[in-house]
């Protein structure tokens, strides 16, 4: 085969133009591990992207572009779910900024929340959030921290029935109000529940995660690193060499693999401001997941540190 100068120039041009051709991110085959959303069977990569604090950058153009680069790397790496909330300051417009730059990747799974105590304001808040993201409709809308859930959930189910969103969920974090979460899971036809769960905060293993499996509810895990505290806590300790067989190369991947290997967990949503970290997080969804024996070993190891 003869390689002409034109071919080389065209090839270089293609490479240079890659960042300017966001639609290329559409439909790329992703080698990430996925799990099905129980209600639909729709495959979901087991690592998503959270936006609490990290995407709340106001109108700072430098920081907005940094976040846009994180979003671009997330989709390039095969990610799907981005999660946000009206409570997260400017995170929603920051997501919109990043998605616009990528011309709205088809792979996007938009996970939003309704967070308003006045039930009458729920629809307007969701509409405002939709405007910030710039999407036609959200895939998932969750009741944030169970705020006025008795009133919001029926409205969200109506929106789902009308085709204005695809899934309905509820959220909590840091182990709060788990009994109430269980009651909602047991009594309401929700599709998703979002909780905090990690190698040290394992209380959900007792009741919430088994209940999610029983009811066919997808589980999103927030704060997988306890806002970075777990990585800071363990980073000076050696990574056990036996986790290498799963492909984990660092503590972030160790922590994520523990979470996403629980059979009831659908995906974890670590947040970051750094492109290298988002790639590192997505790599936790490659290789293999720890089996039950290794999961127990992981717990024993970190508890002994």
């Amino acid at each position: 085969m003869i390689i002409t100068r034109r071919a080389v120039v065209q090839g270089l041009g293609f490479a240079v133009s890659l960042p300017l051709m966001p639609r290329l991110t559409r439909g790329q085959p992703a080698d990430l591990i996925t799990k099905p959303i129980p209600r639909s069977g729709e495959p979901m990569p087991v690592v998503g992207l959270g936006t609490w604090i990290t995407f709340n950058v106001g109108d700072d153009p430098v920081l907005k572009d940094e976040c846009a680069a994180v979003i671009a790397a997330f989709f390039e790496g095969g990610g799907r779910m981005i999660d946000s909330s009206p409570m997260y300051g400017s995170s929603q417009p920051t997501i919109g900024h990043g998605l616009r730059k990528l011309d709205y990747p088809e792979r996007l799974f938009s996970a939003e929340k309704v967070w308003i105590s006045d039930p009458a304001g729920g629809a307007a808040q969701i509409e405002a959030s939709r405007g910030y993201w710039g999407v036609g409709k959200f895939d998932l809308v969750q009741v944030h921290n169970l705020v006025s859930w008795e009133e919001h959930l029926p409205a969200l189910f109506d929106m789902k029935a009308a085709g204005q969103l695809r899934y309905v969920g509820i959220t909590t974090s840091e182990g709060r109000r788990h009994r109430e979460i269980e009651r909602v899971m047991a009594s309401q036809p929700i599709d998703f529940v979002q909780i905090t769960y990690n190698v040290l905060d394992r209380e959900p293993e007792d009741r919430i995660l088994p209940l999610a499996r029983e009811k066919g509810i997808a589980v999103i895990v927030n704060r997988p690193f306890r806002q970075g505290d777990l990585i800071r806590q363990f980073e000076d300790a050696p990574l056990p060499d036996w986790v290498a067989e799963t492909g984990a190369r660092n503590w972030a991947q160790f922590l994520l693999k523990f979470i996403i290997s629980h059979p009831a967990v659908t995906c974890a949503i670590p947040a970051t401001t750094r492109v290298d970290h988002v790639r590192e997080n997505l790599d936790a969804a490659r290789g293999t997941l720890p089996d039950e024996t290794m999961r127990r070993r992981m717990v024993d190891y970190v508890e002994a540190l």
Partner: protein
Amino acid sequence: MSDWATYTLADFLMFSPRVYFRLIERYNQALWPLQLVFIAGALAVLVPAALHPSRVRIAVPSIFALAWGFCAWQFLWMRYASINWAMSYAAAAFFIQTGLLVLTALLAREPASVGGLRRYGGIGLAVFGLLAYPFIALLAGRSPASAETFGMMPDPTVATTLGAMLMVGRRTLWLLLPIPIIWCAYSGLTLWAMEDPGALAPFAVVVATLVFVAARR
């Protein structure tokens, strides 16, 4: 255990220190050299006020009303609220304080007599807010571009206002205290959550104010 007992200070911090201090830097750069105009304006009324309190009883609350209103509008409402939704409420509180200061100016009468400690404490607090506060950024290891100055940023505006009110002996001092003290507590806790050494300054302003208010002489 109540849900509230499970929260820590850091749980209420919804932005990173980098974002917050960049916000201040960009604000300062956008409005430079207005910082100097505010400081010069404040000195122009505070120096005469320190020497002859009765001669500037309208000018003092007037310039502070301007400073509070500017902070509320330009910093809290236009900028800080973009990363902290609670700042829309803080801006409202600052506008209320602006109204109270305007009211104080309109109803200005002969100042109450002020004891030495309260008067000189007030002068010290005003000087701290006006001339020392901008250097806290440097002492905290931050960029000078994130310096907080009177009229531009809430903390030095609060410190200078409290000092001036103590100094000139307002009869309505009790009316002017709650919002500044609540703000200092909020600001101090926010900076503390960000592990910024500048957190000590708002707390020190509250303690100093309460000590000087309590002073009878």
